[in-house]
């Protein structure tokens, strides 16, 4: 969208309402936008990863390598690398320049999910099923795995060392929890990990020590996700509640002094629904969640007051994974039964005043008062001379490039279009 010339009213629409596109390529299980929001990666049930170009709604890359369903996807900061984890116990880092496999990392157990470090595409954190969460570092061409702890840090000065250590009964009960989800903070300094017993463990990514633990809920933590700005984070747990927190000051305040208090709790008190997946809006003002089972809905809450503002209905199927484009008012979601990707966006009508330079859209009839010299007949030469004289003698700068406020200004990798390949055709239809 061009920001300079667009209608300001169109830009201010807060959440999308119209289903604009449906993408059908295989059965999609999880989706992720890149930082700029112009590519969407989709992991399929047969292990293929497909990258859609959201300017053409066509396919930019098809990445084959996994043999089982894709569990999670994570983009590098510049958008060139994509990390996918799968039920075949492998994580693959793809180079999108040509679709090749940059690195493959095998694990000893099934993977819940893997997230790339926000600044370094050679480090990622993986949450494993039967094992401790692992930080993998493959800079210098070696794969180094560092095991992290699922046991929470005790508030008193004792530190838990190992999962299987002898201690009193209370400690052993806490030991038997596994980390289900782990993600880096905005700067990559800490890792936020959620466990099966509802604890949030904050682990320093340099020292790999747990620096803070907080019990957020009693049930599984299913998702932890940060807003685009990093100032808030959401926790989705099995007790059917989504909790919104303000991120504590990670740089200047000691972990011990952090305030991790709930800002809002989002739940559906009427139907007591579980939430399949959660996301923030691009500006952090709204929270999205998709519902479990029969209600084919996406709920949108507003974060300042915490009230429900909209329920978007999906056409036919239960929605599994939902994502908000980081730069536009656009929501993409995958369906459970067919794996279709639905895209909701805002639709702005054509501004008719743009079609001629002196058209203006008015609310009601206006009496036109003509100028004194409106109908004077001026010979062409005089008129031309007058026009030329009116031209500014000001400096005209045709070379310097100015950034437009609000535009995504970081360098984002453009996936090169390679036309020699043969590809299966796929179905992308526009819906109204």
């Amino acid at each position: 969208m061009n920001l300079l010339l667009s209608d300001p009213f169109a830009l201010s629409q807060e959440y999308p309402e119209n289903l604009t596109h449906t993408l059908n390529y295989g059965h999609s299980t999880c989706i992720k936008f890149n930082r700029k929001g112009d590519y969407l990666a989709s992991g399929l049930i047969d292990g293929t990863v497909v990258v859609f170009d959201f300017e053409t709604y066509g396919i930019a890359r098809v990445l084959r390598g996994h043999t089982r369903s894709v569990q999670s996807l994570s983009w590098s900061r510049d958008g060139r690398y994509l990390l996918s984890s799968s039920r075949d116990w492998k994580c693959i880092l793809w180079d999108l320049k040509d679709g090749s496999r940059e690195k493959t990392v095998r694990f000893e157990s099934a993977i819940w999910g893997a997230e790339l470090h926000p600044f370094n595409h050679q480090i990622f954190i993986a949450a494993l099923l039967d094992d401790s969460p692992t930080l993998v570092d493959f800079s210098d061409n070696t794969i180094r795995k560092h095991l992290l702890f699922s046991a929470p840090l005790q508030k008193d000065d004792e530190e838990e060392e190992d999962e299987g250590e002898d201690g009193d009964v209370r400690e052993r009960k806490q030991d038997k929890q596994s980390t289900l989800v782990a993600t880096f903070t905005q700067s990559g300094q800490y890792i936020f990990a959620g466990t099966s017993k509802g604890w949030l463990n904050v682990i320093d990514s340099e020292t790999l020590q747990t620096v803070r633990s907080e019990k957020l809920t009693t049930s599984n933590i299913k998702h932890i996700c940060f807003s685009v700005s990093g100032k808030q984070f959401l926790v989705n747990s099995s007790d059917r509640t989504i909790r919104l927190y303000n991120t504590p000051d990670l740089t200047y305040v000691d972990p011990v002094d952090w305030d991790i208090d709930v800002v809002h709790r989002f739940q559906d008190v009427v139907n007591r629904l579980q939430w399949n997946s959660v996301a923030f809006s691009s500006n952090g003002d709204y929270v999205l969640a998709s519902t479990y089972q029969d209600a084919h809905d996406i709920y949108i809450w507003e974060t300042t007051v915490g009230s429900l503002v909209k329920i978007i209905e999906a056409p036919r199927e239960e929605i599994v994974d939902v994502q908000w484009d980081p730069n536009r008012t656009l929501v993409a979601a995958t369906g459970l039964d067919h794996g279709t990707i639905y895209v909701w966006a805002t639709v702005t009508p054509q501004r008719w005043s743009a079609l001629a330079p002196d058209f203006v859209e008015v609310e009601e009839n206006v009496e036109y008062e003509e100028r004194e010299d409106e109908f004077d007949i001026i010979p062409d030469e005089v008129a031309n001379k007058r026009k030329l004289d009116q031209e500014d003698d000001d400096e005209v700068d045709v070379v310097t490039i100015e950034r437009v406020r609000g535009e995504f200004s970081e360098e984002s990798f453009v996936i090169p279009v390679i036309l020699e390949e043969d590809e299966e055709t796929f179905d992308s239809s526009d819906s109204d």
Partner: protein
Amino acid sequence: MDKMDLDGPADSSGDTTDSELPSHYGNAVPDISVTKASANAKPVVATERTDLPKYVLQFVLEGHRAGVTTVKFSADGRWIATSSADKTIKIWHAENGEYETTIEGHGRGINDIAWSPDSNMLASASDDKTVRIWNVMSGRILRTLRGHTNYAYSVDFNPKGNLIASGSFDESIKIWDVKRGVCLRTLPAHSDPVSAVHFTRDGTMIVSCSHDGQIRLWDTSTGQCLKTLIEDNNSPVSCVRFSPNGKYLLSGTLDSAVRLWDYLKGRCVKTYQGHKNEKFICVPTFSITRGVWVVSGSEDGRIFFWDVQTKEVVQVLDGHKDVVLAVDAHPTKNLLVSAGLDGVVKIWIER
């Protein structure tokens, strides 16, 4: 109004062997009179300035058998592509003017070509109503974009290389997906043939102009018209393009004027005159490698340079025997290439 007054020679079989065509003359003697005095209309003469352009002829490239319609430097500055009414595109080295290859396949004369941003592909718009995408090195055709119902007149790649916009005599603009080769959108752009299309640096807008005298700005993602600019005398606009920073538009009109528009304010801020342009499409362009100039060919066979700020004519190059239809400036070096109805391509250099 046609870009070409004469059609290419009737090529019955269409087979050409490269050995028949003369490749190039290198290092031609610069016996060109480089005058500084301006032509009839502009009274102000550029004097007393030391930073004026001093382009001289470096190479003459011959080989096309009919008038050359477009000449473009590749984005990486290594190649020159020329398209012609003889239905071929020829690729030359930018450094030494050496001939590289010929690309053939269109059924009728070619009106416009555009390089992809990675300099690997060329898009061409032709009188056979198709737009074709070629692999430059192998000369093979990659995609044929069919859909226009009349001559395809102008073509441009977006900066990411995944979209192509084409303007046509059927008064519409089509936006194509490069990868799949399908038309994504058709914009009902004008009420007369669309003579030029151009993307902004960030690819969010397309500017188009037409023989009905209007210049329109379109949003790429929604296909909606964002703004319309019109000059009072409604003379056909033959070409329009964005300035290097995307803030201004440069348009050439068939009343022998080249105008610079500030499209946010919606008015013309500079007018450049002195050349003759009343029938053909003479494409104006910017040269920003040393000094900021506006360059345009003229129907009397000359090439005019204007200073962007003062509007004075700062150099006039002579050398073509017929209308100069296209000029292009190298992205980084002080090179200029020009071509026209006489079928000859000339490279000019400023040392």
